[in-house]
């Protein structure tokens, strides 16, 4: 368990965007793993199995929570594409180049957490889970075009957040 707990927790945390919920999901993943202990003990693909289960449970959790919240909320208008701000590319190159690695990693995680769910999910699935656009569309139940748009916007939003934070961090660390 110790060999995989960071991977399982990280997978869940990046998807659900909440450490407490991610810990609950990670616990569930390992309980499932213990149910299949005999098969997993000698399997070379145990890590892959754990990662897939962590991803699926995280997505299930998100969809279940989202459905419940929608059902019990007033009929709020869905965030539409038109509400999205225009994407800007006024980004400095190597925005975090001068920042200490640990600080940079922390800033990236923080920026990921700050992304809205509709952007964070496809971005994480694409860059960390290494799913294709088609697979992401299937997992999220949305069109291929929406996946591409959301990832495109997520990258721009993330880069903007990193640029803002990077400048601050670089300044505070005395980097050029």
């Amino acid at each position, binding site marked *: 368990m110790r060999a995989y*707990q960071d991977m399982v927790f990280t997978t869940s945390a990046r998807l659900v965007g909440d450490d407490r919920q991610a810990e609950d999901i990670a616990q569930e993943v390992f*309980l499932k793993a213990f149910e299949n202990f005999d098969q997993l003990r000698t399997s070379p693909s145990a890590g892959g199995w754990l990662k897939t289960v962590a991803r699926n449970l995280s997505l299930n959790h998100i969809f279940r929570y989202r459905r419940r*919240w929608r059902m019990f*909320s007033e009929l709020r208008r869905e965030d539409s594409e038109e509400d999205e701000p225009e994407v800007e590319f006024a980004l400095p190159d*190597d925005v975090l180049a001068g920042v200490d690695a640990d600080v940079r990693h922390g800033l990236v995680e923080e920026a990921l957490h700050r992304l809205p769910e509709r952007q964070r999910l496809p971005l994480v699935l694409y*860059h*960390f889970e290494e799913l294709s656009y088609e697979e992401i569309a299937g997992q999220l139940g949305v069109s291929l075009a929406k996946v591409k748009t959301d990832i495109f916007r997520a990258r721009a939003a993330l880069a903007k957040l990193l640029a803002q934070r990077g400048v601050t961090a670089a300044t505070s660390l005395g980097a050029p």
Partner: protein
Amino acid sequence: MSADHERQDELERQLTRTLRDQPLRRAPDSLERRVLAQLEASAAVTRWRRGFAHWPLAARVAFLAASVGIVKVALSIAVWLSTPLDARVLSFDLPSQLAWVQTLFVAIGSVARTVPSLWVHAGIALFAIMYLALFGVGASAYRTMRAAH
């Protein structure tokens, strides 16, 4: 390729590099303790209180057989109640100690058949309204608790 596309590709390359370098986050120390505690708690739970999938095969088969039997009996009763009274139905023999069962079923059947359909529909409507009201109260409670959370 347009300048926009080039910038998009460059952004993708930069972010791919940045995200690929991200190390795994450290799991909370409490995770392992929680998993082990949950495993111990599960082991302590008696077998019949565990999920159906954990029951012994014989118990699962028996449970399914009993369920099918109960459903069959329930359907038979429903069919019997919905058919008109028939002399043949009343003529089956039961031991004298169980005669009350026959009387009870005949009485229930007679009452069920004499209830006007309007009452039945009104009853169903009332049930639906009460169910929706309960659902609404639950939803309000959930929202209130969620807002307070």
